[in-house]
């Protein structure tokens, strides 16, 4: 049932951190690619780790210049370590808001969400005609928005593990050592980029009204809230 009257959806903190994070993520990935280009392999020289790396320069070639921010390794490092500060602060502000406002309840994926996740997946695969009822977010959205927070934490933690592998040796060891921690850091980026592309595609394909809602805070679209 389409909504005629606009409904208040996203608090300004959610909107601000969302767009800030989107911009910062692009710059973090860009500067990260510049850093990666200095040694575009996983492991040690002459002893690469036996892990899948589609972006090893022997196979993929050099990362294109338009995707790299910084010009050279020092430039990439400086962008990356400067923007890490607002990136982490933005993430913490978002998580703090979710916790203090109680909003986390409509986003966190829990075991009880599994039946709805299954129903949503059947609907998207066109094996089920009617859209399952949902609150502000359906179970698949909850899975995505829970995953992305965990992914952010993984990117930050693996980042610190490779930034200070001696001073934070315990953290680096948690990820399997420096070389593996560096690998997981890149894997997190691949998943982030994939998530972003899917996220943007679904916004336009499924519910374009949600884009306006993330800009103005008011939602007028296909999915009225039951929360």
């Amino acid at each position, binding site marked *: 049932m389409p909504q005629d009257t606009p409904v208040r959806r996203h608090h300004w903190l959610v909107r601000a951190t969302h767009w800030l994070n989107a911009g910062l993520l692009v710059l973090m990935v860009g500067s990260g690619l510049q850093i990666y280009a200095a040694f575009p392999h996983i492991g040690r020289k002459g002893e690469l780790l036996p892990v899948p790396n589609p972006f090893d320069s022997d196979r993929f070639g050099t990362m294109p210049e338009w995707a*790299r921010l*910084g010009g050279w390794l020092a430039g990439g*490092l*400086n962008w990356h370590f400067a923007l890490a500060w607002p990136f982490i602060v933005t993430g913490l502000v978002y998580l703090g808001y979710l916790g203090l406002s109680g909003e986390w309840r409509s986003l966190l994926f829990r075991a009880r969400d599994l039946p709805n996740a299954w129903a949503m997946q059947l609907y998207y695969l066109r094996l089920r005609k009617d859209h399952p009822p949902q609150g502000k977010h359906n179970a698949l959205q909850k899975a995505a928005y829970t995953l992305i927070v965990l992914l952010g934490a993984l990117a930050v933690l693996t980042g610190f593990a490779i930034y200070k592998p*001696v001073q934070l040796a315990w953290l680096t060891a948690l990820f399997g050592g420096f*070389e593996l921690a560096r690998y997981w850091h890149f894997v997190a980026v691949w998943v982030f980029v994939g998530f972003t592309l899917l996220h943007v595609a679904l916004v336009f394909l499924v519910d374009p009204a949600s884009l306006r809602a993330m800009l103005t805070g008011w939602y007028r679209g296909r999915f009225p809230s039951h929360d």
Partner: protein
Amino acid sequence: MAAATAPAALAGCGWDGGRLIQPKLLAISRLNDWVGEHVLFDRDRLAPTYDPAERSGRMPSYFISRGENPPAWTEQNEWALNVSGLVRKPVRLTRAMLERMPRLTYTVKHHCVEGWTSVATWTGVPVAAVAALAEPTADARYLRFDSFDSGYFNGWDLVSAMHPQTLLAYAFNDRPLGPDHGAPLRLYSPVKLGYKLTKYLTAMTFTRERPGGYWEDQGYPWFGGI
């Protein structure tokens, strides 16, 4: 995706920040140096050590002098390390003198700023032992390391230089240090990135003001601690 948004709008993706932004990036780099030196560094924490059997097959090395061959000491006079600056007893240490001093051997992991690592064994004199000979004065806060590799140099905070694992190394993988790795003497420590570990040493100078460095003056992080 990345091309359509912020980097392209920032007028050129190879950009190091330009006149407007780069000074801010370098200022934050100095902030990160401060955090690295005063918050995230524990002077008593030792880097993990390895069994010599775990040594890597390759230990890549770089030098800045032109040509294919690594720098070599070609002066008429015998090579020696000059220890001076803000010290009570400046001293000139030859290779023989260094090898008679207390020695330390360890097998540790090397971390290059580029992202590769290598496990190798290093033997040498702790910088702290040489410092004890020279007796730095109370106002000495930094150490400057100079080399004969086209003037490659850099500066260290004293605390990291005095770290128990910071050595003046003259042996690599149980063999005398070769030209590739900075013969006759190089700085080695597992608590900083490779570019801080000056090879082809000629001098060690205690200073009051913070020395820069060959790479550091071009924008690489000065503290370089891991």
